[in-house]
């Protein structure tokens, strides 16, 4: 059962990013930082990791001449996240 838990989601920040993106369309970097209560460097390294496996996609634009990155979950990311949630639930029920 444990093998169904996604290794990528062992990190609290990565799991948090997926949780926020699962229920929102596009979320910008600063909002994510606020929800997860973390630093710029930490957040961006985790975002890059999730981007690499194509669980999330990024959109870059300029808002009043400042770059702004927004993130969105992909279909693959959504199903990986759902699998992880299912595995978590089953594990909790098994060990009650």
């Amino acid at each position: 059962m444990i093998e169904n838990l996604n290794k990528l989601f062992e990190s609290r920040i990565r799991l948090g990013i997926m949780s926020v993106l699962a229920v929102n369309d596009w979320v910008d970097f600063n909002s994510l930082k606020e929800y997860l209560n973390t630093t710029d460097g930490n957040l961006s390294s985790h975002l890059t990791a999730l981007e690499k496996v194509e669980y999330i996609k990024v959109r870059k634009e300029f808002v009043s001449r400042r770059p702004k990155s927004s993130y969105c979950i992909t279909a693959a990311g959504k199903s990986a996240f759902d699998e992880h949630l299912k595995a978590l639930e089953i594990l909790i029920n098994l060990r009650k």
Partner: protein
Amino acid sequence: MHYKVICMNKNGDYIDQLHEIRGLMERSSRFISLSGWSGILAGCYALIGAWFARWYYFGHLGTYMDRFNELISGPDFFSDPGFYGFFVLDAGLVVSFSLITGIILTIRRAKRKGQRIWDRVAQRMLINLAIPLVTGGVFCLLLLHHRLIGLIAPSMLLFYGLSLINASKYTIHDLKYFGLAQVLLGLVAMYFIGHGLLFWALGFGLFHILYGFYMWFKYERESANISA
């Protein structure tokens, strides 16, 4: 024994993980800081406002139903701008006091819980509330312009209810049922035209107070006890 302890710890971790996931989903998609007290107070302001309107109205005219036809066509009503101006001022004061109270109490509550108030969730909720609400406001002013006075109170209830249903997607779910109640009341008021003030007081007064108490009871009571 040792094995069991490890398992329980692990299990606790999983439960914590699920809790954190749920918390983040809620916080990032729903605006949850609106205080129940603001509903209760808004309801009280509405009742006071309705009482003043009734008092003023009966002070100037005969009984409500006697003047029903004149109210719909409205020559008397508009013969004196100061007369209907009172109702506009009265309603404006109720709305202003309610808004100010709501904003102050919500800021206070969010601060106590360490949440930010003006984030993207709050903005999205307010936009979705404002679009039907402003439409309704302009619509009611146009009713006033066309002297269709009897339709104003039911329209206010209808548009307010629809606005709440629209905003409920971005805040606490219970708001949807509160909105539905306002819409139903608005439809009933549209049938019993001429008793607008009574239905207005019911919807904006009594319903707000009941809903405010319900929200306070459901979401705030415990945290209030802890901080006390």
